[in-house]
């Protein structure tokens, strides 16, 4: 029953998306407003139908309806309810269902909020959204069908991948990733709408898509940081980023999206880079699909790769179609996209943005080429090679350091032209802070050129970005006689986009400092201890108390209790474990971490004697790592501030149904 309901909902949704995508262009041609409304209704109906299918699949999981192929694949009666629900995205088919649902939701929302806008941009955007939806429906009916019948119906299933049910962050990371990834479809659809409707010369598609872009970017950032956190807390090697192909796949579109967020400002303010911005948006969308292709086709092995099969062909075909279509649309609009470039001076914020865009694009290519190179090398030479962490670290360090520097310079540079004296004043706080940071890291024993540079520029960027808040607030204190705190709040509230951006910068700096500190000063040691024995790592003493075992509902757990000592006092108990799942031969190592603002004590249980007489543990001192997670949250806060409706942009950026002409009449 549930199976048929879900399956038929997808079939109908496929038909509706197709109908809508055909009807809308006809409605535009013939100028039929009523058909337009009907086309929009297709977008909403699609959302309702995909919601039905998604809920039905969740219901199937919860009720252990093993006659549904997906449930038989990932469900089990022993799995706790919570992990049963989130196993919706635990394997290929379910994750495509979830993707289709997020896409339908975004599509419906994007069309609903802009339904009253005059012109053909929104109808064509709706066509785009329907066509992308259609692609995912085809996947669900073809190579990734989760609703196949199973006969005879098994009594129980194997349960989800143990790695995915071992930590709570698995409930957070995938949905955030989908919200980010899929969200870029909306600004992409506006870009396509602008190209098809011939409105590409105005900045409207950028304004209409701005909040969606910032929100998606915020979700993607949060997803990447949550993924790092998950990897740190779960995988047991004490790192947070391994340049795994699929980590890269999420990072690559983030890089182009970040470049886009900055370069659109040049277009909005100076009318330049129109073609470039269009390409960045198309590229970001294509890269999200490429990322999904890499994850879902199993072409590159990784922690995340699910399965193999024919699905890769579908993705390749889709990427090809999007690229060819984009090529023709851009070519068809090339006359409208021509923009005269003019700069007043080489030293200006415009130039900083140009260099920033170059570095982000180069960074994207570095990661992309490195990720795909094993495939290329095997095709060209027939030799299997690996491109892993040491390569990416070596290549990306100079780029990251240069970007940190730019992040400090950019906000200090005024638009158009920088005057020497004023610039000096704006850069000074940053220079002072940067030098202090650099002295600090050298005093702490850091010697590598890159780590000193990273701290120098991190301090520099922190100084100039903080200075923007202070300078703005002081101006308000003078002008309005407000208290400093009140002035700061009003300043941010009145210029959300700008100060949201600076907030995000400060978050990125925290992430950078956390990464630089932990990779420079990380200390690790492995030891075999008997009860009562202690070991000391980077000045932190740990005592082994006892080893223990217990039976949990879906797994067996072996653990060791370690005491983090502060003199004779026990500061904290830390319990690294190994979890044994019945379906898995090897245990899943489950490290335990105690965080302080100065750093983490990270403990992994490596081996144990069955009688508990000794254990081997790995102890890692990870300085400043919590700042990566804090910084990630600050970046998201910046995105929220930047995307929050209202503020000075009200009416300028959003075409409300009540005032559709407003957006049209913008200069």
């Amino acid at each position, binding site marked *: 029953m549930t199976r048929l309901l879900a399956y038929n909902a997808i079939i109908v949704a496929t038909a509706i998306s197709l109908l809508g995508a055909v009807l809308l262009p006809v409605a535009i041609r013939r100028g039929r407003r009523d058909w337009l409304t009907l086309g929009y209704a297709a977008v909403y109906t699609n959302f309702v139908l995909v919601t039905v299918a998604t809920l039905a699949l969740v219901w199937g999981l919860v009720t252990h309806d093993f006659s549904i192929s997906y449930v038989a694949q990932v469900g089990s009666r022993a799995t706790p309810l919570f992990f049963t629900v989130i196993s919706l995205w635990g394997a290929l088919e379910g994750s495509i269902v979830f993707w289709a649902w997020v896409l339908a939701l975004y599509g419906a929302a994007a069309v609903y909020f802009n339904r009253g806008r005059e012109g053909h941009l929104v109808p064509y955007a709706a066509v785009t959204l329907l066509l992308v939806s259609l692609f995912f429906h085809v996947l669900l009916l073809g190579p990734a069908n989760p609703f196949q019948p199973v006969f005879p119906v098994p009594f129980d299933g194997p349960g989800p991948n143990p790695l995915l049910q071992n930590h709570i962050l698995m409930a957070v990371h995938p949905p955030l990733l989908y919200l980010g990834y899929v969200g870029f479809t909306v600004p992409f659809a506006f870009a396509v709408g602008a190209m098809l409707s011939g409105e590409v010369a105005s900045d409207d598609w950028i304004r209409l898509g701005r909040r969606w872009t910032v929100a998606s970017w915020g979700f993607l950032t949060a997803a990447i940081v949550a993924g790092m956190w998950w990897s740190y807390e779960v995988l*047991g090697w004490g790192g947070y980023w*391994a340049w795994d192909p699929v980590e890269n796949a999420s990072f690559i579109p983030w890089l182009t999206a970040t470049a886009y967020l900055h370069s659109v400002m040049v277009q909005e303010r100076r009318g330049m880079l129109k073609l470039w911005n269009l390409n960045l948006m198309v590229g970001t969308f294509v890269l999200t699909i490429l990322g999904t*292709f890499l994850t879902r086709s199993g072409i590159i*092995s990784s*922690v995340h790769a699910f399965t*193999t099969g024919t699905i890769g062909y579908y993705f390749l075909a889709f990427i090809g179609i999007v690229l060819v279509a984009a090529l023709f649309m851009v070519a068809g609009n090339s006359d409208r996209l021509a923009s*005269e470039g003019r*700069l007043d001076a080489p030293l200006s914020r415009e130039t900083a943005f140009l260099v920033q865009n170059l570095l982000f694009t180069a960074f994207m290519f570095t990661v992309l080429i490195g990720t795909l190179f094993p495939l290329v090398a095997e095709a060209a030479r027939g030799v299997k*090679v*690996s491109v892993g962490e040491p390569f990416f670290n070596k290549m990306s360090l100079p780029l990251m350091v240069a970007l940190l520097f730019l992040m400090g310079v950019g906000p200090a540079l005024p638009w158009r032209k920088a005057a020497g004296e004023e610039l000096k004043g704006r850069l000074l706080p940053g220079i002072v802070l940067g030098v202090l940071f650099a002295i600090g890291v050298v005093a702490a024993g850091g010697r590598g050129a890159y780590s000193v540079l990273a701290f120098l520029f991190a301090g520099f960027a922190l100084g100039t970005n903080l200075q923007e808040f202070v300078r703005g607030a002081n101006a308000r204190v003078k002008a309005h006689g407000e208290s400093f705190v009140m002035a700061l709040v009003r300043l941010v509230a009145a210029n959300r986009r700008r100060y949201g951006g600076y907030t995000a910068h400060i978050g990125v700096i925290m992430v950078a400092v956390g990464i630089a500190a932990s990779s420079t000063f990380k200390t690790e040691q492995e030891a075999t201890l008997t009860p009562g024995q202690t070991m000391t790592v980077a000045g932190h003493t740990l005592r082994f108390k006892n080893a223990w075992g217990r039976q949990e509902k879906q797994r067996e757990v072996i653990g060791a209790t370690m005491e983090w000592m502060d003199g004779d006092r026990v500061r904290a108990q830390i319990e690294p474990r190994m979890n044994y799942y019945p379906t898995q031969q090897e245990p899943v190592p489950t490290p335990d971490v105690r965080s302080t603002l100065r750093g983490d004590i990270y403990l992994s249980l490596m081996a144990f004697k069955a009688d508990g007489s000794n254990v081997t543990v790995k102890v890692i001192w990870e300085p400043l790592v919590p700042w990566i997670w804090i910084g990630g949250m600050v970046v998201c806060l910046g995105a929220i501030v930047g995307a929050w409706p209202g503020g000075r942009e009200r009416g300028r950026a959003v075409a409300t149904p009540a005032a559709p002409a407003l957006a049209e009449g913008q200069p």
Partner: protein
Amino acid sequence: MIWHRRLSRGLTALAAAAALGALSLGAISPRGLGAQAPELPAAPQGAPQDTGALRVQVQGTLTDAQKNDPALDRLTSSVAAQLRCPVCQGVSIQDSPSELAQQMRTVVKEQLASGKSPDEVKDYFISKYGEWILLEPKASGFNLLVYALPWVLVAGGLVFLAFVVKKWTSAQPATAGGAARADDD
């Protein structure tokens, strides 16, 4: 003529995107996606499939002094960080908690203790597992591409930017149109 110009313009504009499409297409053709299906889903791609071949022989030659020698430990870590754990997903044997990785670390340490240079130790593992075992491809021959391309792009981009900035700054000074807007983003 017009179409030619337009198309070439679109082509340049989308060269980036097209290149990546071509890269992935070209890369896939030899094996074909469908052909991958029968492979063991859990085995890392490119890893030797016969687990027997994965084994390493720990000699047990380390003396107690060598076991607790911090300098040897550091050298071992730096070599181990460059070798891929054959049963994991792209993690080095230094980072992997797996048993095989632990054995491989011991072998690295034994060979270093016996006087082999880091390169000789790496060569030993290459002879056993193939080039695939190196987490960072050797910077020679075809592999130079992956090292050079990003920097070629950065250098080319910088030259291009310098040219563009020069051209745009020497153009007519902009009219006051945009200058009146507040510095709000």
